């Protein structure tokens, strides 16, 4: 039952809980280590926590905590929960809020309704998304790379960059048709 199968990759629907082999390809968020799987016939209501990477192909309602690990919601996965994880990959359906300390990746077949907080967010074309994305933990302009800083400086040198907030009562001066391109 818990026999390891080196050929099986996470995300493949399974019929029950089992341990699977590590995934060596894909995004940079994948850890090398044991990845647990919750099969598509499994329904969990309540709080789910783990200290290993986890793939969910079943249904989970409640709360999911994998603070130090990667959570993958497989194509068959249906989540109605608050999720806390290091990184989250969404290939199935999620209703609820996701908080990830590293990255959230919503794949093309993924569907997400809720609020999402993560410094890095990737949403594939074709993915469904409704809600908000909080990336306020992402690198601020002050943390930008030297190349970015040079670009920002070049931007600042442009005349248009100095666009102050208009003063109250300032005359409205639309320039319709003034700059055809």
């Amino acid at each position: 039952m818990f026999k390891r199968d080196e050929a099986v990759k996470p995300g493949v629907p399974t019929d029950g809980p089992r341990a699977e082999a590590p995934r060596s390809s894909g995004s940079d968020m994948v850890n090398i280590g044991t990845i647990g799987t919750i099969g598509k016939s499994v329904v969990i209501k309540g709080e789910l926590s783990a200290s290993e990477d986890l793939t969910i192909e079943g249904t989970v309602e409640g709360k999911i905590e994998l603070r130090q690990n990667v959570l993958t919601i497989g194509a068959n996965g249906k989540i109605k929960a608050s999720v806390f994880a290091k990184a989250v990959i969404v290939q199935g359906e999620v209703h609820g809020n996701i908080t990830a300390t590293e990255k959230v990746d919503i794949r093309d077949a993924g569907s997400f309704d809720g609020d999402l907080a993560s410094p890095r967010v990737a949403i594939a074309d074709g993915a469904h998304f409704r809600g908000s994305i909080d990336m306020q933990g992402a690198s601020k302009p002050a943390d930008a790379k030297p190349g970015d800083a040079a670009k920002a400086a070049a931007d600042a040198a442009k005349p248009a960059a100095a666009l102050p907030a208009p003063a109250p009562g300032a005359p409205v001066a639309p320039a319709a048709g003034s700059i055809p391109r």
Partner: protein
Amino acid sequence: MLKWGSRRADGPQVAPAAPSAPADAIVTTKVFQHFLTAVGHQPSPTLLDLGAVVGSNVSFFGERFACKLHVEDLYSDIEAHAQRGERAAMAKFLATRLTQAPDSIDGVLCWDVFDFLDRAAGLVLAARLAGMVRKGGALYASFGTTAVELKHYTKTVVVAEDTLKYRVSPATLTPRTVLLTRDIIKMFDGLIVAEQVLLKSSTRETLFRRP
């Protein structure tokens, strides 16, 4: 014999149609660039995008601003209403559709959503958005200037701060609502027009600011 200026009587009467937008058309923009500059004055700004989610846009805004982004795809709502033949109900729908608090948003991306709304719905949406924009905040929108039947929605992909890519997707046929500049200014009561540029595509790209 030809009569100059006379209309052909035997030809089919074809309604004017929107110029077919080429797929993935790339345009340069100054107004959007200025929108980014305006929003960038706020630390960790909060943005509201009224278009369908675009992954690369999310990455762009996240990397540039470390912001909070609300995605409210009004185009899907418009399409759903159009398919049900309930376009007139959009005004009532929009009165409660957006739940963001007043004075809570630093930047609003309307894209061309007002082209697809009738005047009543446009007024309701503009009033809601104007109330949401914080002091010093900005609102970016474009308005078509030709009365044509719209056959597609345009998803805008931010390529760079001065470059946008337009991706089209089919839409239920909709007569474009053409607004005059003065009507646009009146709609967004509380905001002022900081910049407006008429593009070759007969689209008026507009940047509003809250003083």
